[in-house]
């Protein structure tokens, strides 16, 4: 059965439990980072951070502070462009498991040429793939394939305190997403589900993507 995530940003408190849990579960070492005038750290996805919470602040039309949080990760597209591009060079470098819909970067990504790597990276509408210089692999969120295979939720979902993240069967998750959207619109009339028809990781955004992150949604 195809799986899906709902990430309801209107419930996220940016506690970053998901960001850290992802590192811990995947045994990813820490980066040396700097304070650059933002809580968002590391500043971007990288081979050691397959999930990060992005922070965006602004004043709304009435002068109220708005602080949006965006736990960013691979969307596991239903028709992953990255796979189409990679398939032209190294079949099997990127695979999509049809049953669950999990999109995986495999060890074969090491066989991609630098040009291919750039092509795959540029093709992603969400700016997700990262190149690991040490292993020469392309890397990204694997939806905790090991856990999902064992009937466990991805570790980020498990860790989330407020129910901002929901994981399960695609149809059920989409149903939940639509209900949430209806509720959320009472407070945030411009709220929408980002690219729900095309991805397995569906974000509920309270306002336009320019108030989250430029790649928060494609449409």
């Amino acid at each position: 059965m195809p799986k899906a995530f709902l990430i309801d940003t209107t419930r996220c408190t940016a506690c970053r439990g998901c960001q850290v849990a992802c590192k811990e579960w995947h045994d990813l070492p820490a980066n040396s980072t700097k304070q650059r005038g933002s809580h968002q750290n590391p500043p971007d996805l990288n081979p050691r951070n397959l999930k990060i919470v992005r922070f965006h602040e602004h004043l709304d039309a009435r002068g109220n502070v708005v602080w949006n949080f965006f736990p960013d990760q691979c969307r596991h597209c239903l028709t992953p462009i990255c796979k189409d591009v990679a398939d032209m060079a190294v079949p099997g470098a990127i695979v999509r498991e049809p049953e669950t819909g999990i999109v995986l970067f495999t060890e074969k990504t090491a066989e991609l040429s630098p040009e291919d790597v750039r092509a795959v990276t540029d093709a992603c509408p969400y700016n997700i793939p990262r190149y690991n210089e040490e292993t020469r692999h392309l890397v990204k969120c694997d939806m905790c394939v090991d856990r999902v295979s064992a009937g466990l939720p991805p570790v980020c979902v498990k860790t989330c305190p407020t129910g901002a993240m929901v994981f399960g069967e695609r149809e059920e998750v989409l149903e939940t997403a639509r209900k949430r959207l209806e509720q959320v619109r009472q407070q945030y009339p411009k709220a929408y589900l980002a690219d729900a028809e095309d991805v397995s990781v569906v974000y509920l955004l309270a306002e336009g993507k320019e108030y989250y992150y430029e790649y928060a949604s494609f449409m």
Partner: protein
Amino acid sequence: MKCTRRSFLKFAGASAVCLTLGQMGFNLEAARAYAGSLKIEGAKEVTTICPFCAVCCQVIAYVRDGKLVATEGDPDFPVNEGALCAKGAALFTMYTSQHRLLKPMYRAPYSDKWEEKDWDWTLNQIARRVKEARDRDIILQNAAGKTVNRFESIFMMGTSHASNEECAVIHQAMRGLGVVYMDHQART
């Protein structure tokens, strides 16, 4: 999907015998290789509690061969229901931190370095310092001639990291010595 630990255990029990990715719907060789085995599978589960903040989220420590392999929120605990924040999620690498102190260390007066010592020597030295100060400084009577039995020249600071049982030990120990200067970070 609400996946409680119990439902997982049922699943894992079955998986120990027969789980293959193929049966889970994974047909591709590549995906199978990628998924690998679940690192907590078959590990012993021990209930512990996150050491940060008084929400006191319950945590499952997964132990194999006497070694910690992972920590996760306990989905059965009604307060956190499996959830953890950034600090709680980092419990495992807090445990494996290379900065951990592992031996009693000693810094001699005016020294510029730490020296490793054994527990026996260390506890004897500390007991000796305490006794010397106590025998010399304890105030049996105050200026008004009242019995006070007060040991004022040493103090105990800490700690809210201690368990209730440890707090009981520390409190009894200190009052037994006559210490009144005792306080901890309930104030910070």
